[in-house]
């Protein structure tokens, strides 16, 4: 599973990264978690506001730090 965190390095982006890592640990899953910090790449991915979260190539949410329950749901949706 590949997870991308889109953000230029602000506190919300860091909070999303931490929440994703913690959620993966709680779920007992491992994933390739990448940070995407270049603005061009962020815009190209369709992220209108940071932070953004993509799971297995699917943009799930942007512009806010979702709760862990939501992050869990996004991961479950793409787990197959």
């Amino acid at each position, binding site marked *: 599973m590949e997870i991308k965190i889109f953000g230029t390095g602000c506190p919300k982006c860091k909070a999303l990264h931490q929440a994703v890592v913690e959620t993966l640990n709680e779920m007992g899953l491992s994933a390739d978690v990448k940070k995407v910090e270049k*603005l061009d790449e962020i815009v190209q991915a369709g992220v209108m506001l*940071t932070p953004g979260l993509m799971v297995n190539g699917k943009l799930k949410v942007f512009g806010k730090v979702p709760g862990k329950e*939501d992050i869990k749901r996004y991961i479950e949706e793409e787990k197959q």
Partner: protein
Amino acid sequence: MADTCTCAAAPVLIFPCSGGSNVGQIANQAAVELTKEGVGKLFCLAGIGGHVESFIESSKGNRLVVIDGCPTACAKKIFDHVNLPVTDYIVVTGLDIKKNHNFDLERKDIEKVCAEVKKRLQCNL
């Protein structure tokens, strides 16, 4: 914090109908100018209308300002379809701006819509 951070504008999302009349385009221009001023962030109504999950998911829990040009209320109906609650709703013709199909937009009309949005945002904090 990074200079290019786009987090700050997140809480107020602005969705103009952007319809094919003066009032639709006044709504759009007002949303552009409110975004440039930092009042909120112009968001993609088409993304909501297209039921793009990430757009719907990202709109949840935010303050959603919807600006329709006329009482046909196309933008509002899009939100009804996806069960997203609109927090602030403005109809341009409701501000004594007459609908026509002339796209030479009046500056004063755009400013009137911008002022109304700002007033609503202050009143409904």
